[in-house]
């Protein structure tokens, strides 16, 4: 009896897995000996995963699902999941509690890049390796934590800038829909975008930047206000797909038609890719949330004594008019 199709994410791990972009042989590596930790068998080990935000957006849903699926695939039976519900201090105590309860490997999707001192101290004392995914922590790999797997958010911003410059023919005014204030992802995606625009397209003017809190509703509200104050806006850079889709609704409400304003966003959810197919979005830079396979592969290697890279940057795809139609099924 459901008439509406879910906007996103019915079959999360079905899509494309992650591909490592860099880091492999030449960068610094880390091994069991280097850290002085002991070998364990992952199958019988207790593993903990700390998610940062509610699984209420496609990215988080896909991320958690991918960890769960891969753990099941590897035959790991003792997987503990916690969710910090966007409260950073809760995440800290969640992780500390998992260490207390004897987990032997931690996979953490950090809510924030700083503030992990107490966790690291505890983990080191108990010799629990920590793999951080999707967001990097400002600390020393191979000492404080094992390794980081994820995208380069600044790079994503730069790529979005490239797309925007291309779409606008290097001139015109652009609005930025920022993510939640203070969030590292927001900071880096903003920095990458602005730096790159300044470098490659000085005639593209950023005339507006307001937070849309990574949510569709706020994205829509802010866009509505923005469109009234800046009727001649040529492009919108949304720091996630949800805000971009909010902006689309706002554009429709303002009587614009598809393609009048070029929208570039980041994430690669199914709804946004469909937006490209429909002509409302110009392009989407992917941020792949399917960390499970890579994370457990890395852990297995590590516990086998092999060296693993200290920084595993995955290569993110991008969706444009050219591939959107064919790849929409791959989006999460």
């Amino acid at each position: 009896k459901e008439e509406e199709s879910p906007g996103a994410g019915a079959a999360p791990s079905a899509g494309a897995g992650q591909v490592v972009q860099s880091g492999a042989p030449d960068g610094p590596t880390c091994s069991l000996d280097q850290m002085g930790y002991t070998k364990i068998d992952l199958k019988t080990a207790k593993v903990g995963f700390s998610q940062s935000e509610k699984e209420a957006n496609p990215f988080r849903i896909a991320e958690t699902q991918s960890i769960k699926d891969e753990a099941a695939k590897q035959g790991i039976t003792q997987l503990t999941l916690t969710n910090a519900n966007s409260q950073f201090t809760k995440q800290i105590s969640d992780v500390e509690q998992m260490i207390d309860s004897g987990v032997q490997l931690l996979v953490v999707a950090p809510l924030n890049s700083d503030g992990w001192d107490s966790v690291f101290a505890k983990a080191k004392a108990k010799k629990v390796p920590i793999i951080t995914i999707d967001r990097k922590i400002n600390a020393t790999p191979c000492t404080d934590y094992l390794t980081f797997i994820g995208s380069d958010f600044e790079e994503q911003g730069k790529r979005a800038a490239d797309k925007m410059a291309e779409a606008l023919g290097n001139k015109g005014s652009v609005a930025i829909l920022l993510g939640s204030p203070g969030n590292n992802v927001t900071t880096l995606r903003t920095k990458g975008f602005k730096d790159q625009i300044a470098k490659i397209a000085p005639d593209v003017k950023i005339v507006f930047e307001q937070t849309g809190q990574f949510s569709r509703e706020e994205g829509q509200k802010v866009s509505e206000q923005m469109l009234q104050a800046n009727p001649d806006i040529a492009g919108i850079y949304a720091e996630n797909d949800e805000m971009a889709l909010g902006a689309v609704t706002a554009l429709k409400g303002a009587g614009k038609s598809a393609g009048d304003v070029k929208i570039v966003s980041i994430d690669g959810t199914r709804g946004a890719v469909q937006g490209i197919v429909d002509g409302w979005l110009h392009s989407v830079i992917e941020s792949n949330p399917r960390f499970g396979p890579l994370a457990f592969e890395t852990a297995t290697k590590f516990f086998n004594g092999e060296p693993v890279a200290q920084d595993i940057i995955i290569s993110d795809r991008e969706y444009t008019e050219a591939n959107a139609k064919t790849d929409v099924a791959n989006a999460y």
Partner: protein
Amino acid sequence: MTDVAVRTPAQRVRAWLPAYGVYVAIVVLLLFNIAFTENFLAWSNLRIQLIQVAPVVIVALGMALVIGTEGIDLSVGSVMALAAAFIPLYLGYGVVAAILVALIAGVAVGAVNGLLVARVGLQPIVATLALLVAGRGLALVVSDSQLREIRNPGLVELGSGSLFGLPYLVWIALALVLTVAFVVRRTVFGRRLLAIGGNRPAAELAGVPVGRVLVTVYVVSGTLAAVAGVLAVARIQASDASAVGVLIELSAITAVVVGGTPLSGGRVRVWGTVAGALLMQLVVATMIKHDLPSSTAEMVQAVIILVAVYAARERRSR
């Protein structure tokens, strides 16, 4: 006890300001925008402001009634989410059915709030805090934490269509404002509600069915929040249980208080509440349009709230 009809001009302003301070502030802000904001007077812009303020006004109406009984309803945002969560599940049975289910959810949460406050005797802020937390959780459970896009033409039309040039949303809000104003002013229920807010034991002794009135008030607040939830879905053309209505309780309370309704109960200013919501909408819009960073915007908002409430505060003779 001689009546003194003569008042100095200063006294007259002082007597007048508490009741009309919000309107003055609105006019000041309007003038500022007309002078300094591009395209401000365009109908399309004014229309956007009205559309955006409509859900807050609707929620604030219920909040004003609750505050009139010396209560508070923190659960409104979660009720919006719950209503939103039910919509896509029942759209298969038609728009009307889906909306009805959403409203029933609002009635149910309101009834629980009301029973906790009136019969069990919980303090309103705690009872509704419990439902603020649990309600949001329930909404996520119901929606399976998924954002669902809505393509039902009826709902989309409700969210974006107009009648005589005014969006449906605004018509609905207006109708509700008029109804609530009428209820407060002209009905037995309205008077009883104010008496309860003014002195609950006294109202009880005077034969006011306190429990029934309180439950009704919270049910009304829950229902209005559910209406706002439905409208939010229609407007963003998606049901997003995790984001809809977040922190709207604070916006609603601010609108009510800035509009001159005291938190201590016993009085409800319906039009003041509308004005309070409009004022806060204008403040936010002004700051967005002038692209102030969120830090500055928040500090400016803080000051404006204080000034508006200061002007509208109850003066006690000393």
